[in-house]
């Protein structure tokens, strides 16, 4: 093989990577340009590639009715949703890794099925239930209903991370006098911290982007960012500039979160890959 052939071969993966990044980032780039253009420039044909950016769409989006509230709601839902998922998911994942748990297989299959069920399946019965017990249009209610997908996901993921921790560690701690709760808290949780961080991030992204359930189970007070963005679509017209700016604003927290925690995510998802 000649040197140039091997160089060409080495370039292939980069070419594919550049193409993949371009395809996935183009919609975001396009939305960003709409958010930064005037109304006239935004829909000019052919597209205007060089323009002086205007920032007023961002101000308009943030100050529009309910947007900042929805932003805060989404943050609270993600936080409570993750706390609930970890509070139940960590002990569940620990126990479901033990050999002698009766019905372990059935529980795991059941969790997997509930994770795979379409979200709207829960909506009708939950709508009635939430109305009657006062959880309709509350962030707590939303964080609770999100457990139908965050909890199975958390349990399955943490179970895989916990399975990589040798059982002898728990046994050594037990011989030293540690109870189950302490073993989980002082041994399993710190060792699986990168995995837990990855789980929290993936859960947060899923909850942050959720639309169907939020649409059905909130009305005004507990509206989330996805609904707030959809709210820019008026009865007779769509405020594309503000909507695009709002879309960019709601991407930022998760993008920032993912960039900051990127190392942890990679560490977590490859936990146990190399013994």
């Amino acid at each position, binding site marked *: 093989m000649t040197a140039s052939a091997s160089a060409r071969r080495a370039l292939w993966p980069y070419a594919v990577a550049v193409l993949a990044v371009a395809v996935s980032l183009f919609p975001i780039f396009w939305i960003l340009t709409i958010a930064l253009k005037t109304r006239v420039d935004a829909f000019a044909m052919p597209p205007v590639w060089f323009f002086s950016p205007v920032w007023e769409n961002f101000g308009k989006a943030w100050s529009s009715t309910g947007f900042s509230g929805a932003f805060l709601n989404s943050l609270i839902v993600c936080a409570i949703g993750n706390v609930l998922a970890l509070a139940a998911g960590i002990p569940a994942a620990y126990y479901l890794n033990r050999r002698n748990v009766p019905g372990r297989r059935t529980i795991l299959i059941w969790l997997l099925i509930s994770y795979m069920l379409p979200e709207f399946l829960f909506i009708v019965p939950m709508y009635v239930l939430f109305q009657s017990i006062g959880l309709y249009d509350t962030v707590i209610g939303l964080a609770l209903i999100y457990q139908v997908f965050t909890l199975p996901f958390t349990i399955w993921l943490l179970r895989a991370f916990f399975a990589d921790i040798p059982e002898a560690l728990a046994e050594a701690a037990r*011989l*030293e006098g*540690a109870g189950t709760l302490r073993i989980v808290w002082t041994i399993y949780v710190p060792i699986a911290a990168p995995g837990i961080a990855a789980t929290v991030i993936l859960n947060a992204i899923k909850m942050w982007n959720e639309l169907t359930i939020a649409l059905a189970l909130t009305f005004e007070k507990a509206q989330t960012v996805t609904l707030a963005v959809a709210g820019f679509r008026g009865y007779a017209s769509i405020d594309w500039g503000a909507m695009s700016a709002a879309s960019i604003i709601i991407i930022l927290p998760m993008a920032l979160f993912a960039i900051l925690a990127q190392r942890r995510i990679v560490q977590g998802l490859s936990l146990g890959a190399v013994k």
Partner: protein
Amino acid sequence: MSAVSLKGIDISYGSVDVVRNLDLDIKAGEFVVFVGPSGCGKSTTLRLIAGLEEGRSGDISIGGRVVNTVDPARRDVAMVFQNYALFPHMSVADNISFGMRLRGEAKETIAARVADVARMVGLKDHLHKRPGALSGGQRQRVALARAIVRKPAVFLFDEPLSNLDAEFRAAMRYELSRLHRDLGSTMIYVTHDQVEAMTMGDRIAVLAPLKQAGRSNLMQFGTPEEVYHRPANLFVARFIGSPPMNFFEGRAEGDRIRVGGLSLPGARHLPAALTVGIRPEHVRHEKPWFLAPAEGRIVGRTSDGAGHRVGENVDVHFATDRLHLFDRATGDRVAV
């Protein structure tokens, strides 16, 4: 230091019996080695003593107290695991003091005791490091220090040296023996390595898998000399010794034993079908003691360093007072 006693121990996993009818009395301060091939139940028995495994029946006593239902932490035992079982996110000092911190002991007491034990095992310069930054031998010392710091009545070792290289293993064998001498604690040590068993144990319990064992896993419980020179049955005779013992089929004829074309001195009332064994070091060729059969494969040791080619005819001689006789039907040793 406490005596450990096992009475009629049965352990099974589901419907599979692993240990059956095991009786053992370990004296206070004794170093006992459980040795045997894979699946003989040696680790399972050790874990039973620790309380990490449940038996189907039988009693476990430590220091005269039956501990069948006592929590592992309250049995006054410390265990060193094969893969060290160190907490990777804690420093060496925190690993060693884990139990003391759990019990809420004073910080000064913990620091003094940790420093003391770290000095004893040669870790005092590594206390701030995480286990990941240590070599295999150093990790094993941390595991050892974590056990020592508790001052337990009984130490349990589950193949603690099997992950170390040969050089370290020899050094650690010596150190563990020295530790036993210094602390005087009861120590139970599991290994499949007969060199470890023969060099470290005050007494050795040779265990066999139930498929080969029959009534009980325990094949013999005795000093290294007894186990080597007076194996209680064919299993022990085969398992202990490297290179292994030579075996020949023999028949009792009056007070003689016929092996191939040879007639060896025996005794009256021997079982008709016998297995005759002789250790390689008792097969000699430099000084005529007794002429060996000219057929079959025999392993011997040469002391003169003489090299022999494969296929070469060599006269070998057995020390007849060193023969081991076993009943071929039961496998048990036959006293002459």
